[in-house]
């Protein structure tokens, strides 16, 4: 028997011994085939997924978004509420990288003046006064992950201000607020999706598997929930939330409201999938081997629907993020001091802002970016999800 892990050179030595070589090739093919045949569904999904450029980019962006949210306090030069009143409504600052031919990121100190025509406050960079940006600087103290007390921040300046996305009317740094706001915007979608997942998976699988009256009740319920137009329903529900609730309660109430409709999509999809699976002979085989409902659901149905669950929840994320933004934008969702992208946008809610301080709209770009990224990722996952048609 030939060791098929042998070095290429060793194989070349055997070249003239034709039969041995044949044997070795046959053996090699066998073993690589064996690997291909033993490829699990997940590996096949992964292989198909990484071939889809757009989806991979989407995935990377999503990952970056969540990493940013996780380390937001460290990445943001300022805290959420830190006011630098002398710099209100400041437009985004340019960062310069080279100072006197040396690599030294810096900004320039700003002179305040007024535009003689519009009487708007303008900030003029003073080229004579570069302010070097420092890395891992001491800033306002914060708690990393809400636990570890820390005060180092990725970058900052020791005097003046660094504000790459400008400031709002109270002199708060937009960049910091957007980054920290992403924590709420991105997790509210996640929590909402998980909640819809749990409800949707339970009802969907039960509905498809048991059929009969269980199915009937679940389907009617879904129809009722779906017959409400979502935005007015959300508005009504969130308007009904007591104003005096602590922010955390409001946050969870909003996720519940958002998932109230979200679960129906998952339930419908899973029901259809389970209905088809239920008729498969391998499910019958398990039953006739003596398996109970629990065994069949856990060992056969859930694994077969798992890829769907992941795909559907990825595709549900944008809707959740958008819904939160929309609600908050309308003043019905989260309210300050809770800060999400929707809350930030709500503060940029008039035509004057749009014209004079357009940088206050940048949270909208982040909303759009995250939604696009999720959609690309979700589409890619969906395409990759079904390597086998059952």
């Amino acid at each position, binding site marked *: 028997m030939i060791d098929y892990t042998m070095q290429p050179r060793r194989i070349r030595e055997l070249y003239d011994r034709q039969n041995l070589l044949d044997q070795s090739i046959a053996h090699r093919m066998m073993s690589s085939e064996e690997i291909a045949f*033993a490829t699990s569904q997940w590996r096949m999904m992964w292989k198909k997924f990484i071939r889809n450029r757009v989806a991979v980019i989407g995935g990377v962006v999503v990952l970056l978004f969540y990493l940013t949210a996780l380390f937001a306090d460290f990445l943001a030069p300022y805290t959420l509420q830190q006011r630098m009143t002398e710099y209100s409504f400041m437009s985004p600052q340019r960062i310069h990288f080279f100072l006197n031919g040396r690599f030294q990121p810096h900004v320039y100190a700003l002179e305040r003046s007024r535009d003689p025509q519009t009487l708007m406050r303008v900030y003029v960079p003073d080229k004579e006064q570069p302010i070097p940006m420092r890395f891992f600087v001491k800033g306002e103290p914060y708690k990393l992950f809400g636990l570890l007390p820390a005060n180092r921040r990725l970058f900052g300046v020791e005097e003046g201000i660094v504000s790459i996305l400008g400031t709002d009317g109270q002199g708060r740094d937009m960049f910091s607020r957007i980054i920290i706001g992403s924590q709420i915007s991105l997790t509210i979608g996640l929590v909402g999706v998980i909640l819809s997942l749990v409800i949707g998976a339970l009802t969907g699988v039960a509905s498809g598997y048991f059929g009969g009256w269980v199915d009937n009740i679940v389907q009617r319920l879904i129809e009722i929930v779906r017959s409400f137009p979502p935005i007015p329903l959300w508005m009504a529900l969130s308007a009904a939330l007591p104003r005096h609730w602590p922010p955390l309660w409001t946050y969870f109430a909003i996720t519940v409201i958002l998932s109230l409709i979200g679960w129906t999509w998952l339930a419908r999809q899973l029901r259809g999938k389970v209905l088809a699976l239920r008729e498969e002979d391998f499910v019958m085989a398990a039953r006739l081997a003596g398996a109970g409902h629990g065994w069949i659901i856990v060992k056969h149905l859930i694994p077969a629907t798992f890829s769907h669950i992941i795909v559907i929840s990825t595709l549900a994320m944008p809707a959740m993020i958008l819904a939160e933004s929309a609600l908050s934008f309308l003043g019905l969702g989260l309210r300050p001091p809770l800060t999400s992208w929707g809350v930030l946008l709500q503060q940029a809610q008039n035509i004057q802002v749009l014209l004079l301080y357009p940088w206050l709209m940048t949270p909208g770009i982040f909303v759009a970016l995250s939604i696009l990224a999720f959609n690309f990722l979700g589409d890619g996952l969906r395409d990759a999800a079904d390597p086998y048609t059952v």
Partner: protein
Amino acid sequence: MNETANAETILEVRNLTKHFPIYRGFIRKVVGRVQAVNEVSFSVRKGETLGIVGESGCGKTTLGRIILRAYTATDGEVLFRRDTEMVNTFSLKGKELKQLRRNMQIIFQDPFSSLNPRKTVMEIVGEPLLIHGVARGKELESRIGALLELVGLNVKHMNRYPNAFSGGQRQRIGIARALALNPKLVVCDEPVSALDVSVQAQVVNLLEDLQKELGLTYLFIAHDLSVVEHISDRIAVMYLGSFVEMAVAEELYKSPRHPYTEALLSAVPLTDPHTRKVRIVLPGELPNPSDPPSGCRFHTRCSHARDNCKTDVPSWNEISPGHWVACHYAESLSLNGIVTVDRK
């Protein structure tokens, strides 16, 4: 009406009937019933193979699945041997039902749908063993290995997924799974219908070998008489939910007593071309099982039918020892059989 159950009987089916309700509309009103199986009675001796033959849609699968308690019967009963007594399987629950399931297993028609594409061969064959807590770990693995060897599969391929196997190999995996719990009775539901002709014989031979080795009893379902010929001791012919004839295989082939059996036989390809006879093509379509013909269900397609066939349901009679027929004129018609070549 039944053969008397003797000590050899392993399965006895009495007046088994299954009607599937047809639902319509929002409140799921029952608007009709598919009469899939109608008053079927027979018994099976330990170690024998009873072939069940009939056109597609005549209720063979349904019959097999009621016996296996996959479907609940509308009427009738199924008795299965447990040690010395015959137990009414429909009354079993919980542990006892689970125990019954160990004793009767199924081999499916579709080699694709019957194996979960997300499980390895090892997981598929090992599943019944795990469900019954028979074995785990190393012990489980060695038993799975033994089962795979038994059905002629390479033990090294244990970690492959079903998509790596051909139809015939998939059926072998299904057979290994069916045998995992040492069943006494195996319902083979058209186990070779979906396979290439070249592979069919191999799988049938395997089933025959396994029967000899393990003392299995088979209910062997097929949609034509050519497949069951070699493997069956007795053959039952089914039409539109009812048994129309049942006899020892040779006798059924040589001297059929039901016009439907004659028609099926005329379609069997013969090895000797000189003995070729005219193929009987039945007129008309297979009637809808939700609205079966009155009287004898076969009368709409029977060339021998007379007036009373349209109104009177023929009874299931034993016209000679072991030869059962449901036809008013079973004694008087002279029907053509075929001479089969080698029987086992």
